[in-house]
């Protein structure tokens, strides 16, 4: 796998940074890959559009920032508007089906959507919608193995919530698998 540069975006409180962190943990701790996570700080991290920049690569990563992501995940409309212009031509867009309307989608972009909030609500906890999205992301991008991602989840979320989070991940993952 060559270098993959991505941005995970949404609004503050959606678990955006955790999602980025889990991708990095899966790649580095459970696979033999390199990863760098840069998270947004300051006012933007407290509500409004917020983002995590993640680079995953087989080689050591020198330049840490992601300016033109190849993969963009947007879980809110504001984040979509803020970041869609950065998506590389021919890149991949993953978005929350009920929260984002992909207006003026650049040509050549491959887009995939998941009703992650609805799925999370069906599981009884809206809070795990980011993990549903992460499962979907894992299935779409194939950057890391789903087992690695699950290991990363198990060791990062509060103990009492592991099962719920794994279930959320599986739902998101199979939503893509079943749909395609």
């Amino acid at each position, binding site marked *: 796998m060559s270098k993959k540069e991505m941005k995970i975006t949404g609004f503050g409180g959606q678990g955006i940074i955790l999602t980025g962190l889990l991708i990095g943990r899966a790649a580095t*701790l459970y696979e033999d890959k*390199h*990863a760098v*996570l840069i998270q947004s*700080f300051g006012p933007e991290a407290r509500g409004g559009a917020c983002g995590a920049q993640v680079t995953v690569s087989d080689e050591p990563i*020198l*330049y*840490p920032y992601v300016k033109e992501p190849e993969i963009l995940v947007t879980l809110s409309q504001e984040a979509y508007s803020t970041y869609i212009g950065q998506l590389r031509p021919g890149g991949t867009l993953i978005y929350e089906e009920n929260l984002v309307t992909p207006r003026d989608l650049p040509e050549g972009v491959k887009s995939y959507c998941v009703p992650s909030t609805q799925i999370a609500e069906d599981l009884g906890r809206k809070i795990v919608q980011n993990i549903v999205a992460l499962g979907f992301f894992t299935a779409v991008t194939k950057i890391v193995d789903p087992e690695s991602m699950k290991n990363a989840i198990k060791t990062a979320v509060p103990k009492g919530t592991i099962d719920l989070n794994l279930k959320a991940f599986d739902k998101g993952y199979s939503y893509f698998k079943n749909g395609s």
Partner: protein
Amino acid sequence: MKADKEGVLTGNHFLDGDHACCEGAIAAGCRFVAGYPITPSTEVVERIASRFPLVGGIFIQMEDEIASSIAICGGSWAGKKSMTVTSGPGLSLMMEHIGYAAMTETPCVFVDVQRGGPSTGLPTMPAQADIMQARWGSHGDYEIIALAPNSCQEAFDLTVHAFNLSEKYRVPVLFMLDECVGHMTEKVVIPEADEIEIEPRKMTNKKPGEYLLYETDDSMVPEMVHAGEGYNFHITGLTHDERGYPNLTVDTQAKLVRRLCDKINKNADDIIMYEDFHLDDADTVVIAFGITSRIAQHAVNMARDEGKKVGFIRLQVIWPFPEQIIRELAGGNVKKFVVPELNLGQLVLEVERVVAGQAEVVSVPHAGGTVHNPEDIYEKL
């Protein structure tokens, strides 16, 4: 000596640079931290505050950076390896006690996670603009040691090393991250405690009465004692004699201040750390440190791919400055030194001084807020 097992978080982690620095300090045996919150360094003390209660350490959030920077001097003399953590505006306030720690030869570590300045500047964005302040910021003649990590792994490894150097030379060591390294998250491998080398404090074997606080041998580094051991020592920021007593004379001043500088400068070979790449055939050499060194390396790789004879020196220790290697290169085949840094040209002045007109020196400045584009550096090669 090897690290104390207690507190060493052996294993693989995905940590940001600030947290890795905290783990490095704990592994190094640091058990007293006094600090004041300031972006982008706060994560270091937040993790210290959370980790210390169960590893026998004590953390206090002081009322300001001035207080923090002298509290760690007290902590060190009372027997604990001590550290404070800050960013530019706080570093400005701490200058008073960087001088005091240098004068009283107090081993301690000042972590500075650099952000854009001057003044409040860019709290959440990177810069490398404290480099000269680190070296010259307190008044008077003195020497410090400054290190700059360029990855989260190094934020761990070099924090341990910073403590070791501060103990070995009884000098304040500045650990200069930048916001980018401090806030980015990468894999960090923390080794087993018995694989971590620790420099023990240089304590005296002499008895009270035989012992003089600042008596030195050829190492130029005096042996230390702690409060409560019965030595009745006296430390002062005034010019002092071997007993530690104030002695405001020309001779005492010359002897003391020269030794404070010599113990670092004459041991520079032992302290200096850098990585070098492709120097054998290089006609152009890039010199960089911290996050900028990663961007510079990218640029160097681009140039090498095109067959350009570009070498690279990546500084891990900034002060003392590695004069010798640069002087040798300048006297050899190197025609040009390129110095990218996240400031408007600080370390480049040191390169110019050392190169002394024997080669061209090109600054690649950046006012901070983000990092260079690799192309900005590549263009100068």
